[in-house]
């Protein structure tokens, strides 16, 4: 990774609005050609971070470099980035072609060349022949595409997208996600996307930065975030998750023995994941990694009482209370797993999982 070309370097960026700390010490790189997402709830500082990259906000501390050049004194209209705004910011007094061609004035192109580029863009966003349309005659999805074309026509080094799909209905959003991803591959431009939708971030991105209360919690690939969340917050934000308490009992070569609170059973997990942690421990496990058994499969299985069973079609969700009705665990199993009979609510069931499924969490 280190030899890759850094397109955006954020060096220790902090932003305060009065006493409110919007961003604290954001410090990471975005590489050329990458589809990078910043994921966070509203108020996490993700949009502010994007606006600092675009130049609409000045960082209180730290520096942004774009393609190696410091951006401290560069106003937004001179930065080699373009943005797709949350509400698309389509100019209401201009038609589609004039909206898309808005930024071309600076390039001093001839009328024919300008028209050629606009037509090329209309082709790219699958709206050929829409040039003369008034902007208020466009649907939400079309406005979004015009906003994309307007930014991409300038061939920026980085395209910044501020919740570009947030205003669309669910079906259209799924379709635009596919198109956005394909578009990014076609044009090869670095995309930085801000979203609060974890599925969107996972589906689109090469890497995701998870933000919470102004801090960047973790930066990883979608699979990495899912399989190895570093903290309870990230784990809870991405997908669904069971949280457990446990105690490290000892090590056994490459494996560590961990006793789960509540059920009392001892499980094994790779020792290198613990990072030398010992004693009490926060653990997490994905619902779909747990197998549910009506009879004890072995001495290491965790016993519990089945409290609830929800049939969801392809999957069945079980709620299992561990030990004396202490912590509850959700198990998500494919519905084929019930071939040997449907367990009754109130009956005792056993849980097991692969050794690699259990994840330790840091405190935060």
């Amino acid at each position: 990774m280190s030899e890759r070309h850094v397109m955006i370097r954020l060096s220790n960026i902090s932003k305060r609005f009065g006493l409110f700390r919007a961003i604290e010490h954001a410090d990471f790189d975005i590489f050329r050609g990458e589809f990078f997402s910043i994921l966070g709830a509203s108020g996490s500082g993700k949009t502010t971070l994007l606006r600092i990259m675009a130049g609409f906000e000045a960082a209180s501390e730290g520096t942004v470099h774009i393609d190696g050049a410091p951006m401290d004194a560069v106003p937004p209209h001179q930065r080699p980035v373009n943005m797709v705004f949350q509400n698309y910011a389509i100019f209401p007094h201009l038609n589609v072609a004039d909206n898309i061609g808005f930024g071309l004035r600076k390039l001093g192109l001839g009328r024919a060349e300008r028209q050629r580029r606009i037509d090329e863009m209309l082709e790219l966003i699958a709206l050929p022949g829409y040039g003369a349309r008034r902007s208020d005659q466009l649907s939400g999805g079309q406005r979004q595409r015009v906003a994309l074309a307007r930014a991409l026509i300038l061939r920026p080094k980085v395209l910044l997208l501020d919740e570009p799909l947030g205003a669309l209905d669910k079906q259209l959003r799924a379709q635009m996600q596919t198109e956005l991803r394909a578009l990014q591959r076609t044009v090869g431009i670095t995309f930085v996307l801000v979203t609060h939708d974890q599925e969107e971030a996972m589906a689109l991105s090469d890497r995701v930065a998870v933000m919470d209360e102004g801090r960047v919690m973790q930066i990883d690939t979608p699979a990495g975030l899912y399989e190895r969340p570093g903290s309870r917050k990230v784990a809870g934000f991405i997908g669904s998750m069971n949280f457990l308490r446990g105690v490290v009992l000892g090590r056994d070569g490459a494996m560590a023995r961990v006793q789960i609170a509540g059920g009392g059973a001892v499980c094994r997990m790779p020792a290198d994941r613990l990072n030398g942690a010992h004693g009490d421990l926060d653990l997490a496990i994905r619902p779909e990694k747990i197998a549910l058994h009506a009879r004890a499969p072995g001495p290491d299985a965790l016993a519990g009482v089945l409290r609830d069973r929800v049939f969801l079609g392809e999957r069945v969700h079980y709620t299992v209370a561990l030990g004396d009705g202490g912590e509850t665990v959700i198990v998500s199993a494919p519905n084929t797993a019930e071939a040997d009979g449907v367990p009754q609510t109130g009956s005792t069931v056993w849980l097991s999982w692969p050794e690699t499924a259990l994840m330790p969490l840091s405190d935060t």
Partner: protein
Amino acid sequence: MAVIQSPDSLTVMDGRRNTSFRRRLAARFDTLRGVLMLLPTLVILGVTVAVPFLLMSAMSLWEQVGFGYGDGWSLGNYAEIAGEPLYTTLLLRSLAMAMAATLMTVVLVYPMAYFLAFHVHRNKLVWLIIITLPFWTSYLLRVFAWRVVLGYEGVINSGLLELGLIDAPLDFLLYSRSAVIITLAHAWAAFALLPIYVSLEKIDKSLLEASADLGEGPVMRFFRVILPLSMPGVIAGTFLMFIPTVGDYVTPALVGGPDAQMIGNLIALQFGTVNNWPMGAALAITMILAITLVGLMFLALSRLLSRWAR
């Protein structure tokens, strides 16, 4: 999907027919409600504008004979207006002075409205009140205030004398066309300011960020985004100011000298000392037509300009 939906389709159809009927009822009710809400305004406008206008139009076709009116209808008054240079001169002068005052006001007031819309974030109402404060006093008082400012021993003259910049008071300040234009520009400023402010205030700030993002600096942002989007306000402000100032007669009477009289003064004379009401009516109608003509030309011009600017 279609198979699953079919049992419900009957009820769906039913519901749709029902809503469309309800919608039609609501639409009809909406029109009725709209008419009812407009009714007081329509009555007032009818009684105070339409009826007097019709009476004026009729009267302009009469003829003054001694202290009474002649029989029948004639276009004699209009023929006299077209033939007598005094009338045309006064009419053209009024239009020119009103245009000058309007232009001056719009140009001066636009930055104020801009500041208010884009740079004041708190207590906008207080700012608006402060800006419109002069308009809380009577129109007559405001015009008199300008006499005090522009007069022979007024604020400007005595100030300049005190500073030793001039030896004798400037006598072109008061009782001149410039005095009328300055006074009109100030007296009607709020009428131009408010519509311009509203149109600027409505502009989505993200459009400015978008134009910056697309490479335009502050100056081009203004000409390519802010000005075109505030044009409706500018046009409204221009009309609101231009129309009443053409016919204004208080200001030229109080601060204008003999060569700064306007068409309004002449009309007032016809209804007063001259006592030729049909002539006054004809002059008033001519003025209205002239204003309409200039207004239409202005609209056509601004539309042409905005198309060209694109």
